[in-house]
């Protein structure tokens, strides 16, 4: 965590710190609390306790109980009160303890958070961020491991962001907080402390709606996000050992999807594997297929393969490794599209 200085391409000096993903989240929240007095953090156990994952560690101490608020155990109340805060000039950042606990707030999000701008022709807006750890793979109790992003990408009026690295987590969270519209910010809990990375200090943003290539290759395009990024990368490494070169794309934003990064890669490879841990039916993977169908139909050399969670409720953890896409399943799909 010692500050180091590095020179970036633009000759500007950026101080960075080596942080885990969850520390990068804390850093972004602390930076924005210091930057803008309208920013308020609301959530269950986020104050004194610093959050069940320690994502808000130390922030209440630093910014006080009026800025970092331990709320009642009340998801609809937290999100609903935040709608009122937002239309009256505040910037609420809500933590939902686990994304699988967001369902009581679903009505508030579907009928108000996402519609206030439309219903008032932009007189009132809701610049709110809803943060939540999501996903399976950490041996959590049941209902803690859902990945319901497509319930939100289907909902007009909210952006959905899902980083997979510490630097992206900070840059995208800062952009989400500055965004004039609601953003659902999905934090892959199994990557919270998976690795460290140099993260720029202070203000630093990554544009919402832009994907990123995390591996380069001309044969197959693997498209994924969040906790599946390292799994897909591992599968791409296995394929590489057999001479199959993969582009691996981390979408980073699930609405709006980066259609250009998809087209650029797919029109080169003509072969695609889409990987997500959410259930297959009506998953965001289908929107990616639809984009490819529209923009790159004539470039395709093989039917697209999807490797996803199954159409079952996310299971108790004894079976979660069978539910989640594995390196093996992804590798098999790469092989299938490559040899078609």
């Amino acid at each position, binding site marked *: 965590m010692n500050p180091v200085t590095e020179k970036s391409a633009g000759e500007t000096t950026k101080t960075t710190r080596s942080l885990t993903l969850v520390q990068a989240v804390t850093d972004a929240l602390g930076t924005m609390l210091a930057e803008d007095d309208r920013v308020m953090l609301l959530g269950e156990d986020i104050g004194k306790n610093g959050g069940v994952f320690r994502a808000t560690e130390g922030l209440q101490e630093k910014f006080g109980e009026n800025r970092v608020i331990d709320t*009642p155990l009340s998801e609809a*109340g937290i999100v609903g009160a935040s709608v*009122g*805060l937002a239309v009256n000039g505040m910037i609420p950042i809500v933590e939902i303890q686990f994304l699988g606990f967001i369902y009581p707030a679903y*009505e*508030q999000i579907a009928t108000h958070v996402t519609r206030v701008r439309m219903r*008032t022709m932009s007189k*009132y807006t809701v610049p709110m961020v809803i943060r939540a750890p999501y996903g399976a793979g950490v041996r959590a109790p049941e209902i803690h491991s859902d990945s319901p992003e497509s319930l939100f990408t289907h909902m007009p009026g909210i952006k959905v962001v899902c980083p997979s690295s510490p630097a992206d987590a900070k840059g995208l969270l800062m952009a989400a907080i500055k965004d004039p519209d609601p953003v659902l910010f999905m934090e892959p809990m199994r990557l919270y402390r998976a690795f460290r990375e140099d993260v720029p200090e202070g203000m630093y943003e990554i544009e919402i709606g832009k994907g990123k290539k995390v591996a380069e290759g001309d044969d197959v395009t693997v498209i994924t996000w969040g906790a599946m990024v390292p799994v897909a990368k591992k599968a791409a490494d296995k394929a590489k050992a057999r001479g199959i070169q993969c582009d691996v794309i981390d979408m980073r934003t699930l609405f709006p999807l980066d259609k250009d990064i998809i087209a650029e890669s797919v029109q080169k490879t003509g072969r695609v594997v889409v990987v997500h841990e959410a259930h297959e039916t009506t998953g965001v993977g289908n929107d990616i297929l639809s984009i490819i169908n529209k923009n790159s139909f004539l470039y395709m050399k093989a039917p697209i393969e999807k490797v996803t969670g199954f159409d079952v409720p996310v299971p108790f953890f004894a079976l979660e490794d069978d539910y989640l896409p594995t390196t093996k399943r992804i590798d098999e799909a790469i092989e299938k599209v490559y040899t078609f």
Partner: protein
Amino acid sequence: MEELYPITQYVNEEGKFLDDSIKGDISTELVHTFYYNMLRIRTFDRKAKSLQRQGRLGTYALFEGQEAAQVGSALSLEIDDWVFPTYRDHGALLTFGANMPNVLLYWNGRTEGNVHPGRNIFPPAVPIATQLPHAAGAAWADKRKGNKHVSIAYFGDGATSEGDFHEGMNFASVFKLPVVFFNQNNGYAISTSIEKQMNSKTIAQKSVAYGMPGIRIDGNDIFAVYFETKKAFERARNGGGPTLIEAVTQRFGAHTTADDPTKYRDQNEVESTRDQLDPLLRLERFMKEQKYWDEKWVQEITTQIHEEIENAVVDMENFPKANVEDLFDHVFEEMPWPLREQKEQYLQSVRSEQV
């Protein structure tokens, strides 16, 4: 519990003063303001119903019978306060200063109708009770800003069965927020009577669970509504936190113009209570009894109100056609590409049709 929450009345059904403590606060101007606003919104309500019947307005939610509750509470607000209404509270909104043609536009399916210049009016809650947490949140923002503004959440008896009722009340009481939860208990949630809605005798008693003051008032007595709501606001403005007010009232008509109340109650019976319960009749009796009645003035304002409403109808009907671009333009500040593509494609198709 019912004994603990007696219905507070200042002026009874015969229009007689029961509580002299407010006598000093009553002036001709105040009484006339009450009467003017109640007559105005009743005339509006009847006009809107008739417009709907003629096919000139969409489905409309009627509030006849609830005028004292809506006018009394809205008149006790200050201009910078926040109002979180339901779809049945446009009487309160009009009193607070909502734009009348806009209220009509809202009921004619126009989003423009939700935008009232110069007033903090949140669009009406259509799902039930979702506005209670909103009001708590807006009040919270004002508390943080350190001003003396308050929020009011309007809701009906049915709303008390929703989870958001509890969550909003709980937030407001935990954080001591300057908000008034103003319940209009009209006895019915569409067809479901209060006895089927809850096993408690009153709504006011629910305040006990939140450690906040609760009061049950005669919602047909505008004096009780006005002075008790004002008291609750004063407490809120001075850091005393939220209050739950149950205004016991009735709607004489249907739930909306799409509803047939004879399916669930005897409308003749409802009409037979009018003489006793009608808030406007009660005020008229009071005014006559206390010598505030001025026939000439009543005639003047009646004409004036009819003119205003007729003009609002003309404004509504002459309002420019809905702009198709508005379908896409107010979802995000900056349109994401899927919307941009959909908009361009659709506009192209619309324009090619017009050629």
